[in-house]
């Protein structure tokens, strides 16, 4: 999650759901929290009962809006203009919390004189390489930065998930030049002011379709929740992330929250609302291509992987907790490769694969679609035949595989793509022409296995095994463990160099029961980390070493299993306002991140009302209502001796301890592929031209334009005049395998539909309940129209824009079936994380039902 990771230091929600009750204002945008995180939304209602102002900005009026004080409809894809205008509002009206931003953020830091802004280059930042479609980021560095001695910067260094974790090409000076008066023209504060100067209420009206008075109402209501006595929280979900500018949208919110002094404080922060039970966990311990557990970088061929030392030198930062990159990677290698990993063989670093390009979902799927290299695929608990962008392409590509293994609780659409997909039904893909060998393995449900999930607030919660899974259903752990056992047996007989890692892989988990289920507590203990001399569990990541004496599967989770029998993810004895004693919150059971910022530079709380963590002068330690996210005994007035590294290199008033300057980053000097600041670009498909810059779309985003992934002409393709946005319902979950198969949920939401305004319905002569055809360049679907005033046309740049809302849960299997919404969506890649743009595209809509 690089938006939050680059701004603050860690890629995860900065706060806990319970903390919403402390907010004076809550802005919910890119989310319909009441509908998609319903039980979490109770905390918003409690806040409202205590007098908080709730603001919901969303194209559709939903149950979230019904519980808000203000609902503001906006055009899908224009969020950066709205948020940028809030930033401009703060700067223009001098509403920034100065006593916070000067000591705690890089607002005062001076930037390189080589930097040129989008205001200077009509929508581009300095460093754009048009031929390679990427930025060189040297000019975004702080003044006085020098190229890192360890080698050239490459495309690999800039962005992706691993950028919260080093890989900078430039090294900032030990004491970056700064102007605490915020006057210097190249201070971040002044560059920010110029950068957002044209993000005005008038611009919001023109681009978002929001009347300027309404915008000012929101700006006033939200920005008031700032200062020593007040805080505000921003909540977002996939309405922000699934855009070609998704990371920068989140960045804009991060800038706003830093300016208002809301990060690290009760009732403040940014609550990223993640959609799956353990999607936070699946980024922390990643089944992702470009990261290793704990956000370490996957080594890249030709960039950083020549040796373990060169890899460490490339990625470590001089100060802050990324200074100990060596401890984290060596401990991971020891966890994976055990005794075979020794100093003389770089701890097995050479057995790990290197990445060579875009191995993301869309990266390798398009390889499959072209029948190139990928011949075998595992799909576990995901359903891309329905949930993947350009789902028709996703399904057809499966037919090019030699073999496919699908694991799920029901036969999903992915498992039966060769049997009953729309392509088969239409005769385009006769099964006898599909040579794919398909294995379907029934999977255990959560009550049939033990392990832990990491929820949206970074909380690890263990679930106990209640019963055995039915029949031949097994857990993924069982499957991977026994597959690994079989493959290790083969590797034992085949000593080719490529099997060195497989032979060395530690894989001796104990098993239990008649099915020989591997012991998940042992796996969690490995994730936590051990001292290898005596096999004792480590208390936390501060105990990790770089000499091979410790093993640790995921350094940010260290502390979850600190002693024999003490599985903190399984603890259920909550106390205090943040539920300490129930589960384990990474890192180190800190519930509100960056909470040192809840105290003034001198260590006293900002106010009695907003106290959270503070310095106890008698005990000479930080104390309070949460685990301090700070060195417990580091005094507020600590000044590091020159040349100090690690956490000792950061001051006692520098709360953002992952960053080498300890500051919250309003300006991101390094780590993102598309700019140190956010800029508004139109979605890849848009009805209108970019009113802010000449550059229409995010130059660094990749539309993956090809004949089977075509786009509308942009802007303003007359064939596709409406904006289409996808969304979720309360009663269904993602691609439907866990809900459309269940009788009660299928009854509550029995049929696919789209939402359109009465005005649009009149234009296309459709009555409520009639069927309509939605068409995009990728395909078309027929579904029922729900005509409602809850979605409304907006006036954008002088023309009326109609928006269509489309839930995307339906597929061709289950108790309730329907057309696949993702057949309409294009595959595209946001530059940093390669996510598709599913929340703002264009379509045409026509009546389908005949009239007699």
């Amino acid at each position, binding site marked *: 999650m690089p938006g939050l990771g680059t701004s603050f230091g860690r890629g995860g929600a900065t706060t806990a759901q319970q903390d919403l009750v402390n907010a004076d204002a809550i802005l919910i945008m890119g989310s319909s929290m009441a509908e998609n995180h319903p039980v979490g939304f109770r905390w918003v209602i409690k806040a409202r009962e205590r007098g908080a102002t709730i603001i919901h900005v969303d194209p559709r009026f939903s149950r979230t809006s019904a519980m808000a004080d203000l609902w503001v409809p906006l055009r899908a894809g224009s969020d950066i203009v709205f948020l940028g205008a809030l930033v401009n509002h703060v700067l223009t009206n001098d509403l920034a919390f100065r006593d916070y931003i000067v000591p705690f953020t890089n607002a005062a830091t001076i930037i390189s004189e080589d930097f040129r802004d989008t205001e200077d280059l009509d929508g581009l930042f300095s460093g754009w390489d048009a031929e390679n479609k990427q930025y060189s980021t040297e000019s975004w560095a702080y003044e006085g930065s020098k190229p890192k001695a360890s080698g050239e910067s490459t495309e690999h260094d800039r962005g992706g998930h691993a950028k919260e974790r080093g890989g900078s090409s430039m090294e900032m000076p030990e004491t970056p030049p700064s102007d605490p008066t915020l006057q210097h023209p190249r201070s971040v504060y002044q560059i920010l002011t110029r950068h957002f100067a044209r993000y005005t209420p008038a611009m919001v009206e023109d681009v978002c379709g929001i009347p300027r008075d309404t915008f000012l109402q929101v700006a006033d209501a939200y920005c008031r929740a700032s200062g020593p006595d007040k805080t505000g929280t921003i909540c977002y979900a996939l309405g922000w992330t699934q855009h070609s500018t998704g990371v920068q949208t989140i960045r804009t919110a991060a800038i706003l929250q830093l300016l208002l002094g809301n990060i690290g404080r009760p009732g403040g922060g940014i609550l990223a609302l993640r959609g799956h039970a353990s999607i936070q966990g699946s980024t922390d311990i990643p089944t992702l291509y470009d990261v290793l557990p704990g956000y370490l970088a996957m080594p890249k061929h030709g960039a950083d992987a020549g040796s373990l030392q060169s890899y460490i030198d490339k990625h470590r930062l001089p100060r802050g907790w990324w200074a100990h990159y060596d401890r984290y990677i060596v401990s991971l290698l020891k966890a994976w490769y055990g005794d075979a990993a020794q100093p003389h063989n770089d701890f097995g670093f*050479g057995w*790990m694969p290197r990445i060579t390009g875009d191995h993301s979902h869309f990266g390798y799927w398009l390889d499959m679609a072209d029948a190139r*290299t990928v011949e075998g695929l595992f799909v576990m608990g995901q359903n891309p035949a329905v949930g993947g962008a350009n789902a028709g392409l996703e399904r057809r590509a499966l037919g090019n595989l030699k073999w496919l293994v699908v694991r799920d609780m029901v036969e999903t659409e992915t498992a039966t793509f060769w049997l009953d997909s729309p392509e088969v039904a239409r005769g385009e893909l006769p099964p006898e022409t599909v040579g794919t060998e398909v294995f379907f393995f029934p*999977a255990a449900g959560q009550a049939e296995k033990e392990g832990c999930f990491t929820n949206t607030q970074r909380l690890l919660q263990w679930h106990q095994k209640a019963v055995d899974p039915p029949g031949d259903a097994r857990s993924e752990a069982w499957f991977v463990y026994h597959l*690994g056992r079989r493959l290790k047996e083969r590797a034992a007989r085949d000593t080719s160099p490529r099997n060195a890692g497989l032979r060395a892989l530690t894989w001796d988990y104990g098993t239990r029961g008649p099915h020989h289920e591997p012991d998940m507590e042992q796996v969690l203990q490995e994730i936590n980390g051990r001292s290898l001399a005596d096999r004792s569990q480590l208390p936390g990541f501060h105990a990790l070493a770089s000499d091979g004496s410790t093993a640790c599967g995921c350094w940010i989770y260290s502390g979850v299993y600190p002693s024999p029998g003490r599985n903190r993810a399984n603890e259920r004895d909550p106390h205090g306002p943040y539920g300490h004693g129930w589960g384990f919150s990474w890192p180190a059971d800190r519930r509100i991140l960056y909470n040192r910022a809840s105290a003034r530079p001198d260590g006293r709380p900002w106010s009695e009302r907003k106290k959270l963590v503070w310095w106890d002068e008698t005990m000479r330690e930080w104390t309070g209502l949460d685990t301090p996210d700070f060195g417990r005994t580091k005094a507020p007035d600590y000044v590091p001796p020159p040349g100090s590294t690690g956490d000792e290199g950061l001051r006692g008033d520098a709360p953002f301890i992952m960053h080498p300057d300890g500051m919250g980053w309003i300006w991101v000097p390094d780590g993102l592929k598309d700019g140190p600041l956010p800029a508004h670009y139109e979605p890849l498909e848009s009805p209108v031209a970019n009113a802010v810059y000449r550059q229409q779309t995010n130059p660094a985003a990749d539309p993956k334009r090809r004949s089977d992934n075509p786009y509308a002409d942009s802007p303003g393709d007359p064939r596709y005049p409406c904006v289409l946005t996808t969304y979720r319902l309360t009663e269904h979950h993602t691609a439907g395998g866990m809900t459309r198969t269940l009788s009660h949920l299928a009854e509550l939401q029995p049929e696919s539909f789209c939402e359109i305004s009465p005005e649009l319905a009149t234009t296309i002569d459709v009555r409520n309940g009639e069927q309509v055809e939605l068409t995009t360049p990728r395909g078309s679907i027929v579904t029922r129209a729900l005509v409602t005033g809850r979605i409304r046309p907006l006036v954008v740049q002088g023309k009326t824009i109609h928006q269509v809302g489309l839930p995307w849960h339906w597929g061709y299997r289950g108790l309730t079936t329907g057309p696949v919404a993702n057949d309409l969506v294009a595959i595209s890649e946001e530059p940093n994380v390669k996510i598709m743009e599913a929340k703002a595209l264009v379509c045409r809509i026509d009546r389908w039902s005949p009239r007699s």
Partner: protein
Amino acid sequence: MIKDLLTSWPAFRQLATGTDGTGREAMSPATRALAPRHDATDVSRSICPYCGVGCGQLIFHRRGRLVSVEGDPASPISGGHLCPKGAATFELLTHAARATRVKYRAPHSRQWQEIALETAMDMVADRVWESRARHFEDTREGETLMQCPSIAHLGGATLDNEENYLIKKLFAGGLGIVAISNQARI
């Protein structure tokens, strides 16, 4: 015996207790013997498998069979509440269309066939070994690569941390598979 007969008669009990005939005095023996579905069960503590809120769940089970799934009132996040999806977890785990057998589709076939679990595991191990051997690249331009480009993986956001850990460890650390992705990006 006469007394037993009389006291089992609701009208008599109503007269004897002076009540109005709408309470316990009117219950049949069958009604009086009713107990909550999850009486005399074991309880496991679990977490809802749907969204990222992480509501606590109590799994009631008896002799190896699931009886009921309810919210966990002790959870500091959810306080015992469940949304419609979480409240459907019992059905998620027990509905008739739940897959319980391994299925295999041969190339070009129009149908599934059931196969034994261990057979399927051996076959998959064979496929992995062959596909990996076919395309593995040890080095490129003189530098270590150790990459298996012919196998890919998708999935993770619905899986446990321990499972994601084992997948990444085996697939990347052991087999050299780099094409690994899941629902998460951001």
